[in-house]
């Protein structure tokens, strides 16, 4: 495998001193490879925002090393760091656009900072707005845009300096599911077309599932689990991972015995008929062990944990039926009884 573009080693971050000290990050090591979409997931307070800010040194690590694109970020001078940051840009949950500038001027902003000639910057900014699908909003102000449009402008702005890495800090957490899906597909697209490495910070498993290749699960400032997204989903080994993967906080005891599958809904038409039609069409009854699903505009999002029947044939029938449904994915999870 190629050299990692981000290499974090034994990173710790402590806020405060003495007895009141908070260990936000505790001995974090991870590698992100060029061109991948890497997820960092955790519940609130797990330290994920601190971790992502340590990658571009918005937070200075207490100890440890952060190598990005071959340079040790913690050892750079202020000036070198400012240059390095053009290579590792960031988008935010609250978009953080300049409210007194037009979209075009927002996208021009990072180029202005680095002294790009105005005409050249504007031409590039128009190209970028075109890429994110907002060419017609160049002269609009952020206050006139929807949340999704604001995030698109923020993405265009983050790409203005041709970064190698794009950090996304809860970039879709303030958006509705439909807009989230469109922003995620844009990120995926940019990752494929421009080859930009993307690091996604989120508390939503659905985001990881949608676009990430690998994921690190952060819990209490430590990496609880790290690996391919499909592996973690089908076989979460730690409590922290199970809490995130299994809907509705299903306890491990429920998972013993029969085969269990996790069904994810990615915007198909309502989920209730699936279970009903499974019973009607296949004559198979399944147990709903847990569910965390949302019906938004008549579309289903979220996931469900189903206990399959003991009978092997029936179980296989149910699984293939569920898998044949549009906008639904299912995978078997190993029991931990």
């Amino acid at each position, binding site marked *: 495998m190629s050299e990692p573009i981000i290499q974090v080693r034994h990173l710790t971050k402590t806020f405060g001193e003495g007895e009141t000290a908070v260990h936000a990050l505790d001995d974090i090591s991870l590698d992100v490879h060029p061109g991948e979409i890497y997820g960092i997931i955790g519940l609130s307070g797990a330290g994920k925002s601190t971790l992502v800010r340590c990658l*571009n040194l*918005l937070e200075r690590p207490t100890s440890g090393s952060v190598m990005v694109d071959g340079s040790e970020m913690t050892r750079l001078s202020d000036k070198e*760091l*400012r*240059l*390095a*940051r*053009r290579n590792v*840009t*960031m988008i*935010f949950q*609250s978009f*953080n*656009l*300049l*409210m*007194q*500038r*037009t979209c075009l001027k927002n996208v021009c*902003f*990072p180029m*202005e*900072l*680095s002294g790009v000639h105005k005409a050249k910057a504007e031409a590039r900014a128009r190209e970028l707005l075109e890429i994110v699908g907002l060419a017609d909003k160049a002269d609009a*102000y*952020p*206050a*006139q845009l929807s949340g999704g449009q604001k995030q698109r402008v*923020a993405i265009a*702005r983050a790409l203005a*300096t041709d970064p190698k890495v794009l*950090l996304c800090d809860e970039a879709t957490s303030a958006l509705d599911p439909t807009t989230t899906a469109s922003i995620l597909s844009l990120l995926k697209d940019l990752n494929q077309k421009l080859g930009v490495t993307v690091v996604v910070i989120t508390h939503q498993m659905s985001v990881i599932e949608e676009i990430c290749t690998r994921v690190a699960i952060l819990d209490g400032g430590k990496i609880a689990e790290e690996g391919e997204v499909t592996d973690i989903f089908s076989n979460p080994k730690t409590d922290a991972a199970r809490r995130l993967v299994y809907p509705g906080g299903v306890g491990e005891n429920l998972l013993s015995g029969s085969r269990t599958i996790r069904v994810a809904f990615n915007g198909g038409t309502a989920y209730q008929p699936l279970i009903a039609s499974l019973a009607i069409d296949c004559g198979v009854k399944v147990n709903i062990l847990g569910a965390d699903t949302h019906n938004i505009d008549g579309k289903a999002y979220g996931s469900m944990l189903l206990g399959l029947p003991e009978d092997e044939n029936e179980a296989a029938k149910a699984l293939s039926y569920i898998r044949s449904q549009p906008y639904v994915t299912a995978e078997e999870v190993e029991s931990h009884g």
Partner: protein
Amino acid sequence: MADIFTAAFWNQYGALLWKEFIHTMVMTGVSTVFAYLIGLPLGVLLVLTADHGIRPHRILNQIVGWIINVGRSLPFIILMISIMDFTKLIVGTKIGVKGAIVPLVVSAAPFIARMVETSLAEVDAGVIEAAQSMGASTFQIVWKVYLPEAKPSLILGCSISIITILAYTAIAGAVGAGGLGDLAIRYGYNRRVASMLLVTIVILVLLVQIIQSVFSRLSTSIDKRLK
């Protein structure tokens, strides 16, 4: 007081009113400009060096904060007489329009620093962080983020500063600074020319109304968050 509607009144006092009106305008205008030249950088410094600022520096922040508080705690008239020697050193005189400008600036600058600080603090911390994440220098953040983003609020603050300075010029009139305040005291109070008092009051009230509405409109019209 009906004599303000007579030609005799205006023949007698018209030129004087005009002259002192101009003096008031000059004192207010010049003092505002110089007070901002000092107060604006101080306000920026306060924001930058605050604990959560982009260049935290507790000692510097406390020293500047303390100086500003001292400046603000002295009533204008006390400050004016206590720095008279300093005033003479700077402009060569303790009285008149020139002599008033120095204490006006000294008194208004700390006030303006606090106004600027408040305006800049309204800028979303996330936007500042975004600029940092793009590699903006401290100077660039001040010049391209803090000041432009806070502009509508700074303009509103400016109207408050100007009106405060205008009020101070009237106090300065009491100690020989000239201007409308001086007229009100010398003619309105000392010589019991009630009409003169009335006219200066009307002019001052109108001035404040005009300044406030012009700046409020300006602030609203440039604020792109409102569209």
